[in-house]
């Protein structure tokens, strides 16, 4: 038994302990200090796999869970899950450390906060390591739920609650769509294991359910990774406390979609559909995110849009890289695999610089009480360390040396240029346009990076607009962003180490067919290549646009508000409820008549269809006795009384008609020589008629309702229909002679019971037990009636006495 399972379950287990720790120690020690141990342990444990990963070994473990359905907690540690695991645990550590200073232990409900955070950490780790798609789905939804809880952490705020609801709705919708895709994959491959599916990739691609499965799974990935048009939840989610934004909504959870796409590249990749869907959605998102980010004035919202655009960038790269699987020859494929490598590299870089930026914005918010850049400015002197950290973060995002973003951005351009020359997937036509669009988005990225840096820290200080007096943050709060900034620079200089141990193994896990051939040269300087010229172009155009910003920013005002994604979302929700209400009003009227109409019509239709389709209508009267005159007369009499009930104007008439109908049945029994039945029926009829009359005496006067002639016609049609269909079925059943009639059994009456009267034999011999119990029931009922009457007398006396 490996240590892996116990260590990976520490987030869940320690979440159970949090309330105890909080209650016991909160007055003295911040709960975060205990929590800090959890990601630290996991991080150290994961590091022990570094050598193994670097040598391209993968690692499998299985723990049975629901073995009867083939659902096991199988984990698969390879390059891809490993790098994700490190980011989750590492960022987790930094975020918890940061939160110790950010979340006040006197004011906030820290127990809830850390429970949600640990829940998220555990599920996110589970998500990247499990091999079983159903367990993956389970963790997927758990991350959505914990994200919901964390966004709504300050639930007193109206915005938090709306944002939490929106994000949950969108991500759970995506998750269910992904589950549907997973089920399709299961139908194709008959397994729930991703590993086993990979070995059947060829077969999956030729299956007719391939495209639906791909689209459904992609919807799941796109909702989680905030791709256009599902991106609206991410800016709203910025209502969460900043440590949460830094952790979930930039570094980890929103990368789950990236993980999923990377993981399934081996199955879906190499087809033009996957290529275009993934890189197309990524590119649109990249553009949408950077165009929207430029006009933002709230720092966190700006960062959210920039996250959307960066996620789009990574998605584009994954799409481009999947083309490598199209080629059979390893050399050709390796050219495009640069894109995959770049995707993973940029994913890592994004986690570092965006995490750093979020934490600094959190510091600004914490110290100054605002994140609005219209109120900020000139903080350079007051918060020099924060300024330096922002400098590193934003320039890395803008793709400036000597920061890690520069390297991955260069690779991004290189991958685009490679792809533009690709002979497949219509790329000869579209390649250049793609490259230009991506370049344009990078220019905008550069612009908003300058906005973050310059509008906050340069220019005039506007102290009078602030609630608090600005000052540098405490040391503790600066540690985490400082570590991230150090990484931003460290990765730039030591990129060889990172690619050797982390990035290339991860890239090869995405594209296993290319393993061993991924020799990617990451260089800070490779002469005046096209990539470098593109970067220089970005800087020049970016500075130009930044200077002229006030001129062109007005263009945004011309965009109609009604067409923004948010208002479309609201509109859709409104229409959905409206439609539902209309359906409800339409046929849930509350009127029993309507209900009966629907039910009876349905019965008529189904029964009629069944009888017609099966050719079941048959009347076999050959064995029936001849109908006598008396029987006919009785029948006509019964029909007459039944019609009288319908047409009766007064209640009394109706009751008497019903009674008459019953008495006519008595005559039938007499005709067929069943005197005991006749007698019983006579008594029952008499009693019911009397009871009816007694009841009606207490009821209010019958109100003559005027029923519209249309309703009457419908009533008539439906009731006649029911009568007809039942009569037809009964008559058809009469023709059945599939087994011997039971009447011969009663010939035993004389032989076995020695009775000349069959009825007597039935009552006392064949069904003696029944008769006894019937007598018992009658006795009990009689007692009941007697008691009631007695009580009534007693009540009457009391009334008199009163």
């Amino acid at each position: 038994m490996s240590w892996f399972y116990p260590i990976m379950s520490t987030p869940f287990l320690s979440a159970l302990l949090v309330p105890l720790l909080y209650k016991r120690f909160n007055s003295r020690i911040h709960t975060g200090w205990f929590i800090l141990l959890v990601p630290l342990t996991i991080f150290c444990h994961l590091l022990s796999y570094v050598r193994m990963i670097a040598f391209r070994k993968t690692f499998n473990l299985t723990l049975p869970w629901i073995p009867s359905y083939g659902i096991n907690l199988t984990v698969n540690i390879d390059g891809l899950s490993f790098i994700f695991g490190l980011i989750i645990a590492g960022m987790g550590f930094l975020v918890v450390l940061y939160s110790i200073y950010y979340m006040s232990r006197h004011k906030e409900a820290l127990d809830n906060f850390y429970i949600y955070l640990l829940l998220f950490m555990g599920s996110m780790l589970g998500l990247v390591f499990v091999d079983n798609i159903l367990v993956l789905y389970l963790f997927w939804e758990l991350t959505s739920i914990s994200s919901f809880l964390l966004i709504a952490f300050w639930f007193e705020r109206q915005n938090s609650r709306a944002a939490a609801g929106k994000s949950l709705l969108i991500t759970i919708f995506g998750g269910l769509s992904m589950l549907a895709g997973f089920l399709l994959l299961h139908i194709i491959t008959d397994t729930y294991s991703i590993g086993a599916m990979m070995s059947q990739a060829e077969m999956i691609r030729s299956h007719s359910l391939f495209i639906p499965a791909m689209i459904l799974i992609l919807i799941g990935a796109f909702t989680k990774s905030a791709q256009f048009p599902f991106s609206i939840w991410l800016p709203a989610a910025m209502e969460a406390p900043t440590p949460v934004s830094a952790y979930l909504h930039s570094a980890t959870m929103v990368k789950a979609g990236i993980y999923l796409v990377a993981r399934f590249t081996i199955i879906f990749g190499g087809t033009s559909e996957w290529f275009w869907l993934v890189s197309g959605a990524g590119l649109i998102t990249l553009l949408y995110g950077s165009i929207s980010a430029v006009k933002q004035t709230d720092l966190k919202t700006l960062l959210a849009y920039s996250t959307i655009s960066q996620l789009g960038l990574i998605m584009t790269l994954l799409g481009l890289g999947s083309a490598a699987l199209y080629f059979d020859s390893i050399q050709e494929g390796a050219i495009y695999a640069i894109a995959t490598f770049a995707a993973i590299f940029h994913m890592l870089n994004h986690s570092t610089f965006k995490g750093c930026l979020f934490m600094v914005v959190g510091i600004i918010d914490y110290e100054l009480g605002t994140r609005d850049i219209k109120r900020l400015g000139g903080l350079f002197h007051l918060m020099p360390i924060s300024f330096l950290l922002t400098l590193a973060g934003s320039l890395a995002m803008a793709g400036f040396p000597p920061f890690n973003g520069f390297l991955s951005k260069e690779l991004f351009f290189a991958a685009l240029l490679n792809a533009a020359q690709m002979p497949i997937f219509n790329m000869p036509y579209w390649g250049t346009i793609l490259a230009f669009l991506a370049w344009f988005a990078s220019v905008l990225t550069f612009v908003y990076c300058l906005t973050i840096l310059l509008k906050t820290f340069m220019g005039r200080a506007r102290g009078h607009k602030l609630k608090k007096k600005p000052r540098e943050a405490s040391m503790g709060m600066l540690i985490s962003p400082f570590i991230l900034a150090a990484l931003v620079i460290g990765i730039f200089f030591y990129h060889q180490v990172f690619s050797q141990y982390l990035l290339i193994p991860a890239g090869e896990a995405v594209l296993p067919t290319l393993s061993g051939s991924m020799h990617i040269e990451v260089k800070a300087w490779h002469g005046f290549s096209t990539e470098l010229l593109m970067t220089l172009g970005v800087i020049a155009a970016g500075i130009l646009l930044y200077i002229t910003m006030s001129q062109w920013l007005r263009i945004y005002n011309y965009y109609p508000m009604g067409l923004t994604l948010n208002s479309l979302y609201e509109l859709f929700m409104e229409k959905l409820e409206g439609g539902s209400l209309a359906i409800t009003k339409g046929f849930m009227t509350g009127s029993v008549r309507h209900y009966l109409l629907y039910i009876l019509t349905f019965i008529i239709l189904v029964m009629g269809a069944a009888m017609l389709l099966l050719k079941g209508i048959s009347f076999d009267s050959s064995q029936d006795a001849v109908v006598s005159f008396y029987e006919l007369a009785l029948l006509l009499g019964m029909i007459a009384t039944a019609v009288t009930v319908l047409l009766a104007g007064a209640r009394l008439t109706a009751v008497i008609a019903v009674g008459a109908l019953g008495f006519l049945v008595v005559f039938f029994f007499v005709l067929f020589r069943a005197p005991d039945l006749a007698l019983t029926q006579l008594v029952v009829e008499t009693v019911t008629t009397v009871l009816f009359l007694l009841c009606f005496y207490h009821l209010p006067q019958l109100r003559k309702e005027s029923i519209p002639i249309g309703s009457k016609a419908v009533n008539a049609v439906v009731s006649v229909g029911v009568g007809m269909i039942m009569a037809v079925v009964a008559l058809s059943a009469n023709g059945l002679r599939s087994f011997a009639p039971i009447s011969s059994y009663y010939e035993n009456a004389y032989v076995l019971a020695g009775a000349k009267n069959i009825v007597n034999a039935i009552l006392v011999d064949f069904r003696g037990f029944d008769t006894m119990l019937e007598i018992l029931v009658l006795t009990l009922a009689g007692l009941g009636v007697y008691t009631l009457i007695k009580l009534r007398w007693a009540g009457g006396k009391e009334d008199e006495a009163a």
Partner: protein
Amino acid sequence: MGYLLLAPEMLLTVLGIVVLALGLILPQRGKKVTGAVAMIGTLGILVVVFWQFGYEAEFFQGVYGIDAYSHFFRVLFLSAALIIFAMAGNYLHLFSERQSEWYSLMLFATLGMIIMASSGDLITLYVGMELMTISFYILSAYLLDDGRSAEAGLKYLILGALSSAVMLFGISLIYASSGSTVFAVVYQTLQAQVVTQPVLIAGIILLIAGFAFKIALVPFHMWAPDIYQGAPTPVTAYLAVGSKAAAFAALLRILVTALPAAHYNWTMLLAILAAVTIITGNLIALAQRNVKRLLAYSSIAQAGYILVGLAASNVYGFKGVLFYAMLYVFSNIGAFAVATLVETQSGSSDFDAFSGLAKRAPMLAAIMTICMLSLAGIPPMAGFAGKFYLFSGAIQSGYLWLAFIGLIMSMVSVYYYLNVSRLMYIGKSSEQSVPVPAMARVALLVCLVGTLIIGIYPQPLSQFAEIAIQVLY
């Protein structure tokens, strides 16, 4: 064990009568004792059932039989009744001096359900069903001063009588084509016949229609919302959980042991009914603004999901039916329990009454949310495991489209279930706290733990259901 195996049924009858009698004998102040007697008695009977595990026997030539399948449903009904007794607590003050009769009727309804699940004969089944239904007619109308409660009772009576008539007609047609009402004999007779008889098919359709009413399948669902809203909330909870499970139990037993799908293709009819039910139930539930009504519509949809397992007509699907019926006890009663407590405090079950519940009663809001997530089928709550069994059964039988309709509609259901959660966590709150009596606290805790445990570790319940299903083959 012989006739001792029938001890739970007999004890339940005796308990019902004793509770009724106690209500007559005891003075006004002492009537609370009847509730305690009913609860302790039910718990005792549940223990007896557990003790009888593994034994089986057949009585009166197959008319009634106790087997693992019966044990499963006995546990289900008795636990449901027990949880509802515990949660009802304060609500019963609305019934003033008629509490003991309420307990007694609930016990008789439970007896009816148990008989339905264990009977091997159409007539016995019918008698059990009437015992249950007649008890519910009275229970629905139990709030004498509330016009809606009376309306609920009356509507249930009128529509219920119709459905009984339809069902009896179906039974008589099945009898006409097979010569018996005992499942095993029906099976043997029909096995020997080569030709499918239209009259028999008509009988099966009418029989299913009768059950469809009890289960509230579209288009037989109309009664459900009015009655669920009008009836006292604990009764509604039992109606939604117990009555449905009983109808499913009986239907499943008949379809498997008397009318196997191989011969009479009823699966398509059930699949269509399930699809229509899931779609209609969910779409209507979207716009509801009253929690009880919302739960009523959603429980229509939930019945549709269970029916998917029946339509699948393989071991997976059937197992799913049992599994879901059991988890439904915890999740749905949990939701109803919270609704009951809120209603007792505020006198209303409209959305407004739940606004900001998280601040007034965080525990209640959390339990409601977890139960609703379970009903929506979100892991790691029990509902996900249940839906997984049901849908994978359907997929195996080739009803992929049905599984997809179920999935898509689950997405829709997330919206309205979460609407309630959002309201509880987000809405403006009044200052009144919601009192939770000790017994209700226990009931809530059982529901919560049940929902979570079944979701996280479904294996034991899954095995229990599998053992129960194996008996039928």
